């Protein structure tokens, strides 16, 4: 692998819970609780986890669309958490995001042309002619046509809108794109088209993706490395094949055993987890997973396991591996 493009170190995002008559702070939701990882240039890092585990918040905190509570985010060796707003705005050219819901992420009052050309204008392409050419070019890159530029988002299907969203993200030739569940709102048949398009674009434009999803097969298909999150924490991070062939963390094992197999008669060892996921407002002590872990030990209730390598390139946060 090449050099790292993004280093996330100890990222935390706590949301305050306000209550009482005067809106006092009565607690906090630990949406992202001490997450660290590195993304190499040109790779696709998948992040999986169930709903509410903090994957999207992680993605948006990295871009400072949600201000992180604590932690460092280094993009191309520059700590972006300390940048001023105007410095950050300039840097957004290189770090883009594709949103989950293509029905909500496009301004309904703007034509496709305006949607895609606005980032160009903001980052200094002042000539209208140039912008129009670039919009046409981008529309073709994502599999639409230049004549679509005059239309409004409501005149498109979900898959087409997501293509518009991708074109907007790519407008300024970014280096890193955070894909926040870009296909989960789409039909399965459209999902594969968009995934293939994204892979093609990665090769063509030398992009790096952080691919956030809850669908394990989607992540497996597209990612080089995969991180698994549980209750705001990263519990396992390794290369795709290592993770699927040899999952270390009990949560990952349970998660992977839940993936449906094509043959229902095939023998399998399902790990069934009991009970609900604890609330992130009041996470369990020690390892957040110990309340549901089939292999929980005494130490798990008291000491939070460190996120450390147990093998080459295989990080796990679990007391089973020391």
């Amino acid at each position, binding site marked *: 692998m090449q050099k790292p493009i993004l280093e996330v170190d100890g990222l935390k995002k706590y949301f305050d819970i306000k209550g009482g008559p005067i809106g006092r702070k009565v607690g906090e939701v630990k949406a992202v609780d001490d997450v660290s990882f590195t993304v190499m240039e040109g790779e696709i890092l998948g992040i999986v986890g169930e709903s509410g585990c903090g994957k999207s918040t992680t993605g*948006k905190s990295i*871009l400072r*669309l949600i201000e992180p509570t604590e932690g460092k985010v280094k993009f191309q060796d520059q700590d972006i958490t300390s940048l001023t707003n105007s410095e*950050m*705005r*300039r*840097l*957004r*050219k290189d770090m*883009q*995001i594709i*949103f*989950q*819901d293509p029905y*909500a*992420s*496009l*301004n*309904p*009052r703007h*034509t496709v042309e305006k949607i895609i050309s*606005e*980032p160009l204008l*903001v*980052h200094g392409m002042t000539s209208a002619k140039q912008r129009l050419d670039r919009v046409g070019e981008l529309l*073709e890159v994502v*599999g*639409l*046509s230049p*004549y679509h530029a*005059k*239309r*409004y988002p409501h*005149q498109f*299907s*979900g*898959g*087409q809108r997501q293509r518009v*969203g991708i074109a*907007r993200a790519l407008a300024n030739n970014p280096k890193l794109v955070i894909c926040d569940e870009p296909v989960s709102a789409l*039909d*399965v*048949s*459209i*999902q*594969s*088209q968009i995934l*293939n*398009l994204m892979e*093609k674009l990665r090769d063509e434009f030398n992009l790096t993706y952080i691919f956030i999803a809850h*669908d394990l*097969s*989607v992540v497996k*298909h597209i990612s080089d490395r995969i991180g698994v999150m549980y209750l705001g924490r990263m519990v396992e991070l390794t290369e795709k094949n290592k993770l699927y062939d040899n999952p270390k963390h009990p949560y990952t094992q349970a998660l992977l055993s839940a993936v449906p197999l094509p043959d229902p008669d095939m023998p399998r060892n399902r790990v069934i987890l009991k009970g609900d996921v604890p609330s992130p407002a009041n996470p369990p002590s020690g390892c957040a997973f110990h309340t549901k872990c089939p292999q929980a030990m005494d130490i798990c209730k008291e000491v939070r396991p460190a996120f450390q390598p147990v093998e080459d390139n295989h990080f796990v946060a679990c007391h089973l591996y020391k």
Partner: protein
Amino acid sequence: MKLDERKPEEIEQQITSPVNRDDRPDVEQIETVSPWRDAWRRLRKNRFAMAGMIIILFFLILALIAPLLTSYSYYEQNLANRLLPPSGEHWMGTDDLGRDILTRIAYGARVSLQVGFFAVIGALVFGTFLGIIAGYFGRWVDMIISRIFDILLAFPSILLAIAIVAILGASLQNALIAIAIINIPIFGRIVRSRVISLRAEEYIMAAKAQGMKNGRIIFHHILPNSITPIIVQATLGFGTAILEAAALGFLGLGAQPPTPEWGQMLASSREFIQLAPWTLIMPGVSIMLVVLGFNLVGDGLRDVLDPKMRN
């Protein structure tokens, strides 16, 4: 999920060709309907709104052609002709000072429409500005602005207008300022709540992710998307402003004689209700019709522009 088993070239072909499986069957000529034209098209089908628009148009024309309509003056007294009933000579009769009522109604339409227009514009500009600031920046800015709105809304509006006019002095212009002020929180609150709900929209976050400045986000993304409730409120507010101006005129706090203001016309002829009812009926009906016209159009606009009414 089952992934593609086709050859890479086929997939390549499919994803790069303009017409995809997820494309609706479409042709290049497909019409691009801007949301505004679409709204107008549906508004035209609304009979009540159209009736309201005709009423407004009628008074607008009346106001514009007032000097051409009659040869009478709206202020010159002719005591020989006082309190004449409607006739061929004076279509709406004359008032207690012998002035032609039709003439005074037509010139009065100028006054009322002007007051309505400027009061609404004033309230709209300041209310929208404050509402956007409060909604977009939140926290203590919102706290301060919202409490000011609450205080303004705690007074009965006409009482507040009277207080403002009492401070500034009774004149049409001051009545206009008072009406604008009491309408500021109404616009402000609508815009504020709209901005707060918009701020949570993903396309606003997307605009931020593109690297846009707050000013650009506000003017290109927030404002265009909050314009429809503003338009509806402005139309309805036009009617209320006219009504409030008439009320202030009636109380002697608005337009001063001999300005032919409808409310003031009502006040000056109320002693003659038994003797010459037309002196009251004409301005009264005019006020009622104009306000009705604006309310009908406002309701029609609300139906047409409210996204929840779309099918």
